[in-house]
């Protein structure tokens, strides 16, 4: 059983079309289309090792080096025509990114997104060892950053959420962001501790998620002036 956000019903203040969020979703889908069209498994694996971020690639500076921290954000695991990895990340990005982008503006939001992604990559590198050859792929680190920013900026906002018990229950709940994201953070933290102690068997990069989430703390550097003014004066964004 788990909770799945399917939308944020609350209105935006500045711009009704979230250009940057749409662009990011499209970019991820296009890269996935290339992955899907690449010969399987050789072509796909070559893409993962070239564009995915392995700590040793960054540390020893070969291949794409530091740039793999950025390219890996657009890669997702190939699971047929529909990838749950891609769909999950993009739904989370759409749900939480729309209002965060509204508070930042598209350009600053893009920079924030990559900053959170880089924070995620750095924590992943430090946690998994500088010479680990296993690459990590996915937008989830950056998306975690967007979720962290959402929690800081709109803790009381309601998220349209569905329960998933074997199959999705078609009656959405309107959970406050605080009650959705804090349990989510705890759910990331516990397996991350397991992984640090060498017990974790999951292929999920929990430290990447945590890195992105803590990277969200830099959101104050990317807010619109008006939005920051609202925030510091205690008026809702």
């Amino acid at each position, binding site marked *: 059983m788990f909770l799945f956000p399917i939308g944020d019903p609350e*209105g935006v*203040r*500045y711009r009704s079309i979230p250009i940057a969020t749409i662009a990011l979703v499209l970019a991820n889908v296009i890269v996935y289309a290339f992955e899907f069209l690449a010969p399987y498994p050789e072509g796909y694996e070559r893409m993962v090792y070239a564009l995915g971020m392995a700590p040793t690639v*960054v*540390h*020893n*500076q070969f291949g794409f*080096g*530091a740039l793999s*921290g950025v390219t890996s954000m657009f890669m997702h695991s190939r699971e047929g025509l529909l990838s749950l990895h891609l769909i999950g990340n993009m739904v989370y990005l759409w749900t939480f990114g729309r209002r965060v982008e509204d508070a930042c503006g598209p350009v*600053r939001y893009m*920079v*924030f997104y*990559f*900053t959170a992604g*880089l*924070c995620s*990559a*750095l924590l992943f*590198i*430090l946690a998994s060892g*500088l010479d680990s050859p296993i690459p990590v792929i996915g937008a989830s680190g950056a998306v975690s950053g967007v979720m962290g920013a959402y*929690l*800081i*900026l709109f*803790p*009381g906002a309601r998220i349209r959420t569905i329960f998933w018990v074997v199959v999705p229950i078609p009656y959405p709940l309107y959970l*406050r962001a*605080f009650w959705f994201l804090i349990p989510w953070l705890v759910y990331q933290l516990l397996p991350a501790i397991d992984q640090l102690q060498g017990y974790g068997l999951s292929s999920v990069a929990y430290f990447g998620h945590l890195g992105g989430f*803590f990277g969200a*703390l*830099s*959101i*104050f*550097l*990317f807010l*619109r*002036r*008006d*939005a*920051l*003014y609202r*925030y*510091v004066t*205690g*008026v*809702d964004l």
Partner: protein
Amino acid sequence: MPIMARETGAQATWSRMGMLHESRKLTAEGIEAAKNRRQLQAEALLSDALILDPENEEALLWLSRVAVRPEDRRASLEKLVALNPANEAARVALHATQRHPQGEAGLRDLVARAESATAGGARRGALAAWKAVLDFDPGNEQAVSAVVRLLGSDHRPQARALVQRALTHNPHNGGLKLLYAEALAESNRWDDVKRVLPTVGPRDLSAAQAFERMGRLHLSAGQMTAAREAFARAVELPDHAPLTHFQLARLLDREGMTERAVVAYREVVDRTWGTPEARQAEQRLREISPYLPRSVADSWPFILREAAGWVVFVFLLAVMDSGVRVAGMSASGVAAIMLAAIGGTCWAVSGAVTGTVRFFGARAIGQGSRRALRVAGVALCLAAVALGLFNSLRSTALLLARIHSG
């Protein structure tokens, strides 16, 4: 000489303020004694308070309850009503002392019986009980408003006559005047409503609901400024209806007071989430936002902050580009990272606390310490950015020098 005169005036003012302060202190002690059933001590303390400040309304009211001799009680009440004819509690008590054989307690008993009859739901019985109250005190606001409510819209002329009669007995009561204005409004006598409303002074009303009623009446009569003032007073009082903010916001917006209108609209959105009014407020907020004072928008911390975001991004890329080698970094680079980490943490903790506190709806908690934390965080972050920039420039200069030397 003028200096001497001013000094004497100031001394007199200070002396008067001291006496008022002492009188309030004695009153508080007297009330405490009365509540602990030490009647004689309470009477002495309250009498002393009245020597220092003969116009102390609270002391007079409590003295009228604790004085041993009935004539002293009546004298206190008479003085209090003379001082403030709108003091309903004093007026009712004085009336009861003069009219009811059992005094104030007897009238209270009648009111309690009427209240329980109303709660019981029997209309006829409740009307009879309230009329019994009105027999002893025809100007009793509580009884009149209860009877008007029970009579309903079928007996408007009767209700208006009742209120008019009550006003002849109790001409200073703001609540009765409001009831009369409402009765006139129901008969579409708007000119009369406009004449009655200004006679209700803000001092006559003490409940948010009364100010809301007055605001609505002013609004219906087309007196926008007066309506805004009434709604503004209502929202200052506890237990006001959340939608009063909506009325206030619309009036402020209409009169061009955008800053206050924005605050009022935000209150509507926060307090009445999901209602049509909240949606309208949200819509209007979008139209009149963004709202940021020019002085803040152009201030250097706001401009520097935007540059800092880019620098942090470039800085992270540089850390990745160096192969995450802390040992290979210069001392200033390490110091910049540490400062950024500490500053970012301060800023983040401040933000997280603000978010949590806001979520639980208690904005006032720890506001000062959060602001201090944020200021410290911003200062450290700016220091980190400055150091990071210095580090980058120095590295670039060293690189250029190396290239130049071949």
